[in-house]
């Protein structure tokens, strides 16, 4: 049954984005908000707004009974969870459906299965999708470790079975290394965790983060090509691109086909993203996890394919079969998105909530700014620092970077510190321009003064 009235269980720029897509489909919008968000942009734009609880997210945006009760009371027939908060809560999806509303996302069972790393890995293996090869369990014997390493291929990472957070990880380049390092790793794990168990995993060197956007209707699935999001700080993406120019056409085709295979094998319904690590030196990709929701960086895919992913999500949740056939989904040109956060890059990215002063937003062909701002808006300190996303689309990657630099210079958000200076420095960096980076590139670049180097050059 088509959705007539949509409850938006999120905030910020994604709530604004969902309202726009729903409105284009003639769907009534009901915006949830906390007490601290009563004057946010999405509340102003929505047809109706409902307060769901106090400022603290645990008592409002993360409070399943409160959100479901508010949506029911408002008479909504569907709930869009956005990203973050309850977007990947199987319990929330279940509660929404149990209350007689459509959940804009996949079945709770699929959220559960894909949210569990081990289950997701098994599902990927079943669908023939490559995963990071490893020992699939602990190894207590060096000879067995040598056998496994020979199968997995060097270099291998030696990890403590009881460890976490990257502690005690060693990399063995050869069998001799492994024979020397494994006993050390065991002794260290025994001392640190009281458990000398270790396991092995193929080391992915200088990994690039590549992901594939998919859409499914529970029976069929298509991909909307890939994105590269290797520029990350503290595991948060800061700059995202579509497509991934480091891939050959053959690798790109194999990668996207693998994503569709996994989506089909689990009967995926809705929009989802499969994340992979890509090792350039060996031209190999490995599935790491699936996100069963819309992602922050979805606009770069929309720019290159012309597909409105939120609209497709709403249609699928309303019971429509996929409208798009794979052969109709072409990616043209190159798109880049940068995240504009209320953070001060000059002070270790200290969050900087404040009151938005004069606002100047660049406009033009191939330019888009998805945001939550208006002049005079007081940014609340209780939620994450993402204010908006500046997106550009151009025929080539080089032109897209140049366009991004131009657009960043025109974007003015008075009253708050933002990450605009970081993105200006990245756009001007020769390594970024050459596409030579990986997931561990940005932090050393920042530590090495990449940002200040650029600003000093600009000042001369």
């Amino acid at each position, binding site marked *: 049954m088509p959705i007539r009235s949509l409850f938006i269980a999120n905030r910020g720029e994604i709530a604004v984005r969902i309202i726009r897509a729903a409105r284009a489909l003639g769907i009534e919008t009901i915006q949830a908000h906390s007490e601290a968000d009563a004057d946010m942009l999405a509340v102003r734009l929505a047809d109706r707004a409902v307060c769901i609880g106090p400022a603290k997210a645990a008592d409002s945006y993360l409070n399943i009974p409160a959100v479901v009760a508010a949506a029911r009371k408002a008479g909504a027939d569907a709930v869009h969870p956005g990203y973050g908060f309850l977007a990947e809560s199987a319990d929330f999806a279940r509660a929404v459906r149990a209350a007689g509303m459509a959940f804009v996302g996949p079945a709770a069972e699929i959220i559960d299965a894909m949210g569990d790393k081990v289950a997701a890995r098994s599902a990927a293996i079943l669908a023939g999708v490559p995963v990071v090869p490893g020992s699939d369990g602990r190894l207590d014997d060096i000879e067995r470790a040598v056998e496994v390493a020979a199968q997995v291929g060097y270099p291998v990472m030696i990890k403590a079975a009881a460890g976490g957070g990257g502690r005690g990880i060693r990399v063995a380049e050869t069998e001799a290394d492994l024979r020397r390092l494994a006993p050390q790793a065991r002794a260290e794990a025994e001392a640190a965790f009281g458990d000398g168990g270790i396991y092995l995993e193929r080391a992915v060197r200088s990994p690039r983060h590549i992901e594939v956007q998919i859409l499914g209707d529970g029976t069929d699935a298509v991909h909307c090509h890939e994105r590269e999001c290797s520029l990350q700080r503290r595991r948060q993406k800061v700059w995202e691109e579509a497509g991934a120019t480091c891939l050959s056409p053959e690798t790109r085709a194999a990668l996207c086909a693998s994503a569709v295979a996994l989506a089909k094998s689990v009967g995926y319904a809705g929009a989802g993203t499969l994340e992979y690590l890509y090792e350039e030196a060996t031209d190999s990709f490995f599935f790491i996890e699936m996100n069963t929701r819309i992602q922050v960086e979805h606009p770069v895919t929309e720019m290159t394919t012309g597909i409105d992913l939120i609209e497709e999500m709403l249609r699928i949740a309303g019971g429509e079969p996929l409208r798009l056939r794979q052969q109709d989904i072409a990616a043209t040109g190159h798109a880049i998105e940068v995240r504009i956060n209320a953070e001060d890059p000059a002070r270790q990215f200290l969050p900087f909530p404040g009151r938005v002063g004069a606002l100047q937003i660049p406009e033009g062909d191939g330019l888009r700014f998805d945001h939550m701002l208006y002049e005079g808006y007081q940014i609340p*300190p209780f939620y994450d620092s993402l204010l908006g996303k500046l997106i550009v689309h151009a025929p080539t990657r080089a032109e897209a970077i140049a366009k991004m630099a131009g657009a960043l210079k025109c974007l003015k958000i008075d009253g708050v510190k933002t990450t605009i200076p970081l993105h200006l420095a990245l756009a001007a960096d020769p390594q970024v321009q050459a596409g030579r980076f990986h997931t561990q590139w940005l932090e050393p670049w920042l530590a090495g003064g990449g940002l200040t180097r650029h600003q000093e050059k600009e000042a001369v």
Partner: protein
Amino acid sequence: MKEIPSPLPGTFYHKPAPDQPPFKANGDAVAPDDTIGLVEVMKTFIEVKAEVAGSFAGYVAQDSSPVQAGDTLAKVE
């Protein structure tokens, strides 16, 4: 009596973690470099330093409560 203001808007916490005791109890010695609480701003935890010396005279802002920049968090004698 000296007041310790919040350096940022956010949520103020008396404790380093929910299962731990508050940073300071009444009567504790306070040095300028001592942490007296945390302010959570946009999912980042910022340590609040006393900036003054003396004897801790109690929290003014409640644990886990929203505060504005400049709000008094605690007092020192």
